[in-house]
C-alpha cells in the first residue's frame, strides 16, 4: 500500500496565550488523508490548543501561534480564518458543546450547513442522515438547545459539524458526557464516515481505550510536547500506554476501587 | 511677561450647542483681533486662547484653571452651569466674571457679588420686558388679567431663572403662568405641545437653548400654534433657532440683548474690511453681523472696555491684573459717544456700572423673524427697576446669608 497523502501537517508549532502563557512547545504531527488520527494526553496537555491552532480558533482565546507552520494539503493556513478552513472542508467540533443556546436543535443543525452551496435538497438529505445517526436529536428537534441535556447537546454539536459535509473533522472529546452505547455509536459513525465518505479525522480524546480502537495512528501529548507516537495498534500494546492511559498496568484492568495512588498523596485530613 | 493682555475664550464649537456656540466664538475672537489690528488697548496688545468646554461644567472648570495659569484676568463662562461653579472660585483667584445676558440674576447686586458682572441684562430683566411687551400688545397691564402665559423652558437652572419674576408679575397683574419644562436636549416635545393645545395659552414664552428652540417652533407649526404669539428670550432668538424652520417660524418674536442682527453696523463693516478682506476673519464672511456673532463681539468689547477703563486708573499702556480689571468693569462708563466711536452706533445703548449695579443697563429691543431674517419691531425698552431691584437684593441677601458673607461696605466699594 502506498503511503497516503499527508492532508494536514503540523510542524513544530508553539502557542502562547495572552502573550505570556506558553502552552505548546513545538508540536509536530501529520494527518494522512482518509485516516483517523487520535491525539491523546492528560488534562491540560494541550490537545484542545492544538486543534484550535489548526482550525484557527485561537484568536478568540487571545492565543497565538508564534512558531512553526501548519499546512493543509501543502498550503500554509496559519493566516486563514476559521471560515476559510470550513470552506476547505475542515470543521472543528468544539470541546464543551457550544450549541447555540437560543436556537432549536434543528436550527442548530441547519446553521451547520451555512457554508453549503449544493442546494436545499442535499442539505435536507444530510439532515436526515444526522437524524439517523442520532435519533434522540430528532425527538428533541424543536427544543431550544439550552434546554436539552448535556449528552443531547454533545450530539447536536457533532451533528452540526457533520452538516457541513466536511472533508476533515477535528473532534474534541466527542465521548465526553455521552452514555456508553452512544459513545460506541459516535465512534461507529466516525468509522462509517471514514470508510464510506473518506472523511479524515483528528480527534482529541481522553477515552484512550476506545480512541485507539478506532484510530489508525496516535500521538500522545504531554505538557505541550509530543511524547510518543505510533500506529494505534502498536500504542495499544505499549506497556507505558497500557499502564498510564488504559489503566491496565500489569495486564488486567484494575478495579477503580482498588487503585492505590502510586503518587504519594498527603492525606488531607491528617 | 510680554506686554500683552491675555483674554481666555471659553467656547463650545462641538456638541449639542455648537450651532449656537460657533458664531458667538467667531464674533468674540474677531473683535479681539480687531482690537489688535487697531493697535491694542492703549498700545497693549491683546492675546487670547480658546478653550473648548463643550458646555460641560467640569470641562469648563478645567479650562478656567488652565487659562487662569496663563494669566487670564477676566472670564466669560458662557454657560450657566460653569458660571455657578466659577462664581465660587473667582473671588479666591481675584478674577472677575462677565456673564452678559446669562448667569444668576441676583448677581447684578455688586454689593454681594463682587466678582460677577451680568452686564447688559439678566433673565429677570428679559422676562420683565417680555411680559411688558405682552401687556402693551394687549393694550395695558390691566388687560393681562385672566390671560394665560405658558413658559416653555429648558429644564435646567438656565430655564428656571425667569420663573420667580414671572410669578411676581402674575401676582401683580392676575395672569396665569403655565410652566412647561422640556428635558434636555429637547428633541421630543410632543407632550409639551399637546399640553399647549389643551390649555391654549394666549402667549408662549420660549426659554430654550440649542435644538430645543427649533424643535419647539416646528411643533408649533405642527400643532398650529400661532408663531407671532411666541416670544423667545435672547438665547432663543438667533439664526440657528429659526434657520431650518424657515417660513414656518415667520412671525416669531424674540427679545434682543440690545443688539440684533447688525450686518450693517460700523463695527461689523470694520471687521469685514480689516480682517475678512485680508483673509484673517475667523468664520465665514456671511456670518459677520448675525445675532450670535454680534453677541460674541459685544461680549468681547465689554471685556476690552473693562480693561481700558482700568488702565485709565492704573496706568495707560500697562497690562492689568484681575483685580484692576474688576475695578474697570465696576466703573464702566460707556456713553453713547464712546460706543459710537467704537462702531456700535445703533447697536448698543450706554452702559454704566457701579458698585451696587453690576448690570449697567437693561436695554433691549424686540425683533421678529420674517422668514429670512430678523427684523426689529420695537424701539428701545427697559425693565422695571422698581420691581427687579428688590428681588435682586432679596435673592442676593439669601445667597450672602448662606455663604456667611456680608455686604461690601463703602470702603470696599471705592477700592
Amino acid at each position, binding site marked *: 500500500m502506498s503511503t497516503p497523502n499527508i492532508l494536514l501537517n503540523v510542524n513544530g508549532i508553539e502557542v502562547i496565550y495572552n502573550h505570556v502563557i506558553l502552552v505548546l512547545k513545538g508540536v509536530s504531527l501529520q494527518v494522512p488523508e482518509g485516516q483517523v488520527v487520535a491525539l491523546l494526553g492528560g488534562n491540560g496537555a494541550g490537545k484542545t490548543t492544538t486543534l484550535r491552532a489548526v482550525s484557527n480558533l485561537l484568536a478568540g482565546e487571545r492565543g497565538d501561534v508564534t512558531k512553526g507552520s501548519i499546512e493543509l494539503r501543502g498550503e500554509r493556513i496559519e493566516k486563514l480564518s476559521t471560515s476559510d478552513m470550513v470552506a476547505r472542508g475542515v470543521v472543528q467540533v468544539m470541546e464543551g458543546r457550544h450549541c447555540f443556546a437560543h436556537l432549536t436543535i434543528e436550527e442548530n443543525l441547519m446553521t451547520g450547513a451555512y457554508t453549503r452551496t449544493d442546494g436545499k435538497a442535499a442539505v435536507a438529505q444530510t439532515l436526515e442522515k444526522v437524524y439517523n445517526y442520532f435519533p434522540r436529536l430528532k425527538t428533541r428537534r424543536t427544543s431550544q438547545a439550552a434546554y436539552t441535556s448535556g449528552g443531547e447537546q454533545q450530539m447536536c454539536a457533532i451533528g452540526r459539524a457533520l452538516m457541513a459535509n466536511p472533508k476533515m473533522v477535528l473532534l474534541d472529546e466527542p465521548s465526553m458526557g*455521552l452514555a456508553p452505547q452512544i459513545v460506541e455509536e459516535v465512534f461507529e459513525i466516525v468509522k462509517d464516515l471514514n470508510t464510506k465518505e473518506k472523511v479524515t479525522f483528528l480527534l482529541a480524546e481522553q477515552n484512550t481505550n476506545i480512541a485507539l480502537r478506532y484510530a489508525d495512528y496516535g500521538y500522545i501529548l504531554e505538557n505541550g510536547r509530543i511524547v510518543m507516537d505510533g500506529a494505534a495498534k502498536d500504542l495499544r500494546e505499549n506497556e507505558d500506554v497500557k499502564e498510564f492511559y488504559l489503566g491496565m498496568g500489569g495486564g488486567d484492568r484494575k478495579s477503580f476501587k482498588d487503585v492505590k495512588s502510586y503518587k504519594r498523596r498527603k492525606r488531607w*485530613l491528617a | 511677561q510680554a506686554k500683552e493682555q491675555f483674554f481666555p475664550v471659553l467656547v463650545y464649537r462641538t456638541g449639542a450647542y455648537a450651532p449656537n456656540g460657533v458664531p458667538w466664538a467667531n464674533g468674540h475672537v474677531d473683535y479681539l483681533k480687531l482690537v489688535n489690528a487697531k493697535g491694542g488697548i492703549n498700545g497693549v496688545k491683546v492675546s487670547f486662547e480658546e478653550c473648548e468646554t463643550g458646555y460641560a461644567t467640569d470641562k469648563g472648570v478645567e479650562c478656567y484653571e488652565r487659562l487662569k495659569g496663563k494669566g487670564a484676568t477676566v472670564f466669560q463662562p458662557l454657560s450657566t452651569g460653569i458660571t455657578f461653579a466659577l462664581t465660587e472660585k473667582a473671588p479666591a483667584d481675584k478674577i472677575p466674571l462677565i456673564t452678559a445676558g446669562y448667569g444668576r440674576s441676583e448677581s447684578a447686586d455688586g454689593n454681594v457679588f463682587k466678582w460677577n458682572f451680568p452686564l447688559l441684562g439678566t433673565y429677570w430683566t428679559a422676562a420683565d420686558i417680555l411680559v411688558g411687551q405682552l401687556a402693551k400688545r394687549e393694550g395695558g397691564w390691566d388687560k393681562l388679567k385672566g390671560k394665560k402665559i405658558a413658559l416653555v423652558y429648558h429644564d435646567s437652572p438656565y430655564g428656571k431663572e425667569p420663573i420667580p419674576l414671572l410669578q411676581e408679575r402674575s401676582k401683580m397683574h392676575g395672569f396665569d403662568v403655565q410652566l412647561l419644562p422640556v428635558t434636555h436636549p429637547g428633541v421630543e416635545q410632543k407632550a409639551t405641545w399637546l399640553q399647549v393645545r389643551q390649555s391654549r395659552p394666549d402667549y408662549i414664552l420660549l426659554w430654550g437653548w440649542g435644538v430645543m428652540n427649533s424643535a419647539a417652533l416646528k411643533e408649533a407649526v405642527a400643532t398650529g400654534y400661532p408663531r407671532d404669539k411666541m416670544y423667545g428670550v435672547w438665547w432663543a432668538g438667533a439664526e440657528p433657532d429659526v434657520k431650518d424652520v424657515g417660513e414656518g417660524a415667520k412671525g416669531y418674536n424674540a427679545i434682543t440683548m440690545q443688539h440684533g442682527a447688525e450686518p450693517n453696523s460700523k463695527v461689523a463693516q470694520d471687521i469685514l474690511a480689516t480682517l475678512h478682506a485680508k483673509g484673517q476673519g475667523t468664520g465665514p464672511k456671511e456670518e459677520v453681523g448675525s445675532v450670535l456673532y454680534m453677541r460674541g463681539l459685544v461680549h468681547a468689547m465689554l471685556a476690552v472696555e473693562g480693561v481700558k477703563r482700568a488702565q485709565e486708573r492704573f496706568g495707560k499702556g500697562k497690562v492689568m491684573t484681575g483685580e484692576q480689571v474688576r475695578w474697570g468693569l465696576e466703573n464702566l462708563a460707556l456713553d453713547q459717544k464712546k460706543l459710537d466711536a467704537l462702531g456700535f452706533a445703533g447697536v448698543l445703548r450706554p452702559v454704566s456700572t457701579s458698585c451696587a449695579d453690576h448690570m449697567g443697563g437693561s436695554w433691549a429691543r424686540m425683533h421678529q423673524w420674517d422668514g429670512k431674517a430678523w427684523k426689529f419691531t420695537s424701539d428701545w425698552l427697559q425693565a422695571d427697576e422698581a420691581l427687579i431691584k428688590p428681588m435682586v437684593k432679596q435673592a442676593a441677601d439669601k445667597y450672602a446669608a448662606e455663604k456667611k458673607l456680608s455686604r461690601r461696605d463703602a470702603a470696599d466699594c471705592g477700592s
Partner: protein
Amino acid sequence: MSKKIGDVILDVENISLRFGGVKALTDISFNVREHEIRAIIGPNGAGKSSMLNCINGVYTPQEGKITFRGKTFSHMNSRQVAEMGVARTFQNLALFKGMSVIDNIMTGRNLKMKTNLFQQAIRWGAAEREESAHREFVEHIIDFLEIQAFRKTPVGRLPYGLQKRVDLGRALAMEPQVLLLDEPMAGMNVEEKQDMCRFILDVNDEFGTTIVLIEHDMGVVMDISDRVVVLDYGKKIGDGAPDEVRANEDVISAYLGTSH
C-alpha cells in the same frame, strides 16, 4: 476497610418534573443511605441531572416530595438545602470563571464565615483570623486534589479536567453530608479517573460523606458504587446493587448496550 452503611438519609418519593411538554422525570422514587455511594445512570436525556436539580432546589418538581434527614419538603430554595449540608458539582462546569482556584474553593466556605461587612472592610482581628482559618482548610483541599500549582490561576484558564477538580473542591469545602456529583469524570483519561475515584472514595471513607454520583463510565460505576438507580426517559427502570443492575434486561437494552 468496611463501610458502615447507615439508615436512609435522603428519600425521594414519586417525583415528577415536566418542562412544558417534556416529561423530564415521571414518578421517580429511590432512597440514599448514609455513607453509601449511590450511582444514578441512564442514557442521555434520561433526567439524571434534573433529578439532582430537584434535590438541591434548582428545579421544583410538580409532584412528589423529598425527605432529608427526616425533614420532608416538596420545595426548598438552594440555600436552605446547602445549609442542610448538601453540596454538588455540575455537569457543565459552573465555576466562577473570573476567580482564582483558591477563591472558587473559598466560596464553598461561605456558609461558615460569620464576620460582618464592617469587620471585613477593616479586616482586623476577627475577619483576618476567620479568613486565615478557612484558608487553611481550603489549602488542605487543594493539596488533596493536587492543584497546588494552579491555586492563583483564574479557573477559566484551566484545562477542562482540572476545572472539574476545582468544582469538586468547592463542593468539598462545604464539608457536606451529602455530595451530589454530576459526571465528575467526564473528559478525563483513565489515570485521571483513577485519581478522581480515589478522591471520592477517600471522602466517602474518611468523612463518611454520602455520595450521589452520576456517571457514564460503567467501569467506575460498577466498581465504586454501592447501589445504582437506572433512569430512562424519566422513568426508573432499575435499582439495586451493581451486579443486579448489570444483569437487568431493561437496563441492558436501554443503556448498556451489548458491548458491555
